[in-house]
C-alpha cells in the first residue's frame, strides 16, 4: 500500500505513561519518538500493521495555548474523545492477557451479534472497543 491514512493521533495526559501503556500492556511498538525542545512527536504501531501509526500527543505548547490544552485534557479525562476500535483474533484471550497486565477494562468480553467484544480505557481516558475479527463464513 502506498496511499492512505498513515498517522492518527490521540491526546494523552502524559506521554511516558501512554508509551508504557501502549507498548508494555498492549504490545505496540515505538515507531518514532523524537523531541524538539518541549515538543515530542511520539507514534506507536501495532506489530501486525506496519502501514499505520498511532500518535500519542500531549496537548500543550508550542502547538496549543495553555487554556486550550487544559480543555483538551479535561475532554480526554471525561472519555469524550471519539471511539477507537482494536481488532483482535481472539477477544477472550486478549482480555485475559491485558487484564493480567493491569489494563482497566470497562466491559468484560461479551458475545453478541455473532462476535465477541470488550472495552477498555487507556490511562488518560481514551476508550477502546476490542472486537474479534469477523470470521469469513465458510
Amino acid at each position, binding site marked *: 500500500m502506498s496511499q492512505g491514512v498513515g498517522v492518527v493521533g490521540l491526546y494523552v495526559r502524559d506521554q511516558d505513561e501512554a508509551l508504557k501503556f501502549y507498548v508494555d500492556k498492549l504490545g505496540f511498538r515505538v515507531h518514532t519518538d523524537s523531541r524538539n525542545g518541549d515538543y515530542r512527536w511520539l507514534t506507536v504501531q501495532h506489530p501486525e500493521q506496519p502501514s499505520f501509526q498511532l500518535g500519542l500527543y500531549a496537548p500543550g505548547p508550542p502547538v496549543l495555548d495553555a487554556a486550550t490544552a487544559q480543555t483538551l485534557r479535561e475532554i480526554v*479525562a*471525561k472519555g469524550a474523545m471519539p471511539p477507537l476500535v482494536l481488532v483482535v483474533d481472539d477477544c477472550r484471550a486478549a482480555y485475559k492477557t491485558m487484564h493480567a497486565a493491569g489494563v482497566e477494562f470497562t466491559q468484560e468480553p461479551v458475545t453478541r*451479534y455473532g462476535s465477541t467484544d470488550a472495552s477498555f480505557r487507556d490511562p488518560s481516558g481514551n476508550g477502546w472497543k476490542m472486537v474479534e475479527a469477523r470470521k469469513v463464513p465458510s
Partner: protein
Amino acid sequence: MKEQTSQDPELLRRLLRAKDRMDVASHEDWPVERLARVSRVSKAHFARSFKDAFGVPPHRYLLTRRIERAKTLLRDTELSITDIAFQTGWKSLGTFGRIFRDITAESPGQLRVREKAASHELDRVPACFLSAAHRPDLKFAVLEKRRREAKVKNKATK
C-alpha cells in the same frame, strides 16, 4: 446558564470510572456512596462534580442508561416487558412503564411494535455505538417533567 468552570483532569478521570461502572451495570443499584467510593471522593463532592462534568446528576444518568438498555431489549429480543423491566434494574413494572413513557413519550409496547416494523441496516456499526445513538436525551428530571406538565394542565383548567 451557569458558566462551565474548569475541572481537574485527574478528578474527571476518576469520575469517568464511576460513569463507566454505571454503564456496564446499569441494572444494579448505584447509591451516591457507592459511586463516590469508585471515584474516591466525598458524597457531596461527587454529586456536584459529576453533574458539572457530564451535564446530568448521576441518578438521572443511570435512568437514561436503563431506558436505553430496555429499548435495545425491546427491539432486539422477544423478552416480555416484565422481564425487561426487571433485567434493566426496576423493582416494579409500574415504575418502569411510567418512567419509560416520561422519557420516550411512548409505552414500551408501542416502541416495540414501531421498532420491529422499521427495517434497520445497522449490522456494520459496533453494538456499543448503536446503543449510544439510541440513548434518550434527558434534559431534565422525570419528576420535573411531570411537575411542568401538571402546571400546564392546571393553567388550562383555570
